[in-house]
């Protein structure tokens, strides 16, 4: 066990989000009588740019989709900049790009998650376009962090510092698959909590 620095105050321990988060964290998505500060759209109705969908599932160690997880995405805009101005729920009606989304996996068939966003630009040299993912769920005592990369960014992915820190045979667990769907371009990523395909999670 690692020793903590005595000059530091002890951090508050993490606890599971549990199964009953929806009426607070994702109320409108689940139809509860409370407003939501964030939803599946990381942009407004009139935000310029080509929309993409991010879809996927979270699969447990028995291969079953997890129907009670919270998925958060946080990403840069198309120019590679993270939003620093305060986000308002009204942004979903306008032209702004927030870069932040949150959904629960309990409202779509097959426990899928789906987000609507723009493809991010590269944030810095040595970083391929990517989206930060944070997961919470019943049965998870701590937040799980990973990243989503894009399958059509082969060259940039090959230069990415973080991907290169991952054993080659596991890199694909963070790369979302490009697909052309009737509604537009989508990228699909299944997140495996365990097993041969176990996703790479981070010590943040």
């Amino acid at each position, binding site marked *: 066990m690692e020793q903590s620095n005595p000059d530091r105050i002890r951090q508050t321990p993490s606890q599971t989000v549990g199964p009953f988060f929806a*009426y607070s964290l994702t109320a409108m998505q689940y139809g509860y009588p409370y407003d939501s500060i964030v939803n599946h759209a990381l942009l407004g109705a009139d935000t310029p740019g080509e929309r993409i969908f991010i879809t996927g599932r979270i699969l447990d160690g028995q291969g079953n989709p997890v129907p009670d997880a919270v998925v958060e995405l946080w990403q840069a805009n198309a120019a590679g900049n993270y939003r620093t101005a305060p986000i308002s729920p009204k942004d979903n009606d306008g032209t702004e790009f927030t870069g932040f989304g949150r959904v629960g996996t309990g409202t779509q068939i097959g426990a899928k998650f789906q987000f609507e966003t723009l493809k991010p630009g590269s944030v810095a040299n040595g970083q391929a376009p990517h989206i930060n993912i944070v997961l919470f769920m019943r049965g998870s005592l701590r937040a799980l962090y990973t990243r989503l990369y894009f399958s059509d960014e082969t060259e940039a992915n090959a230069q990415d510092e973080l991907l290169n820190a991952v054993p080659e045979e596991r890199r694909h667990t963070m790369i979302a698959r490009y697909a052309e769907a009737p509604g537009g371009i989508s990228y699909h990523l299944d997140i495996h909590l365990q097993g041969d395909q176990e996703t790479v999670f981070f010590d943040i």
Partner: protein
Amino acid sequence: MEPTNFDVQPPHLYPAYKSTIYRSPTRPLLPVRELIRDLSLPVFGESVLQKHDNDLTKNARVNGEPIGERIKVAGRVMDDSGRALPNVLIEIWQANSAGRYVHKAEVHDAPLDPNFLGGGRVLTDSDGMYSFYTIKPGAYPWGNHYNAWRPNHIHFSVLGHQIEHRLVTQMYFPGDPLFEYDPIFQSVPQHARDLLIAKFRMDWTDPEFALAYQFDIVLNGRYQTLFE
């Protein structure tokens, strides 16, 4: 470099809490602290707050007051160097005084309260302080093992300033006799469990209105202090 303060954190796999068995990563986490620096989290302002978001005794009233013991919960959010963190969004949810959640998947046979939702949110002020009113939540049974009961608790979701500040946790009440039977509480190393238990604060009480509890929240502050 300061190591992650794992010695207060629960492990991913804690078999007594059965749902962790198939939902916890089995491989070592990728150390990314050199690769992910200065990644801020989204910022929210006053525009996300509705009038009674910080008063769960008022934000879902239909035809009267919610039933139960009215309490105030307050505290400071800071990083682990003790620096107060202003403008941190805290989202909360909890069971009602009978131990029943509004959630549709909840099957516990205890009454719903038509005047209580159990959801709310609050932002920390310039001193990192937050405060909200609510009804003291009840204990409730769950299916982890025979005769399993959760101690009284309030769920907290905290969006600090940096990516390493994202925290979801639960606040407990002092002296709860269910602590020793609850694997979720017990998943935290014994010496750190006190960090999840609010302190009763007689001096913060609103006389003739509500008893008060203090729950300070300390977030991982590694990156910000790295260059000091």
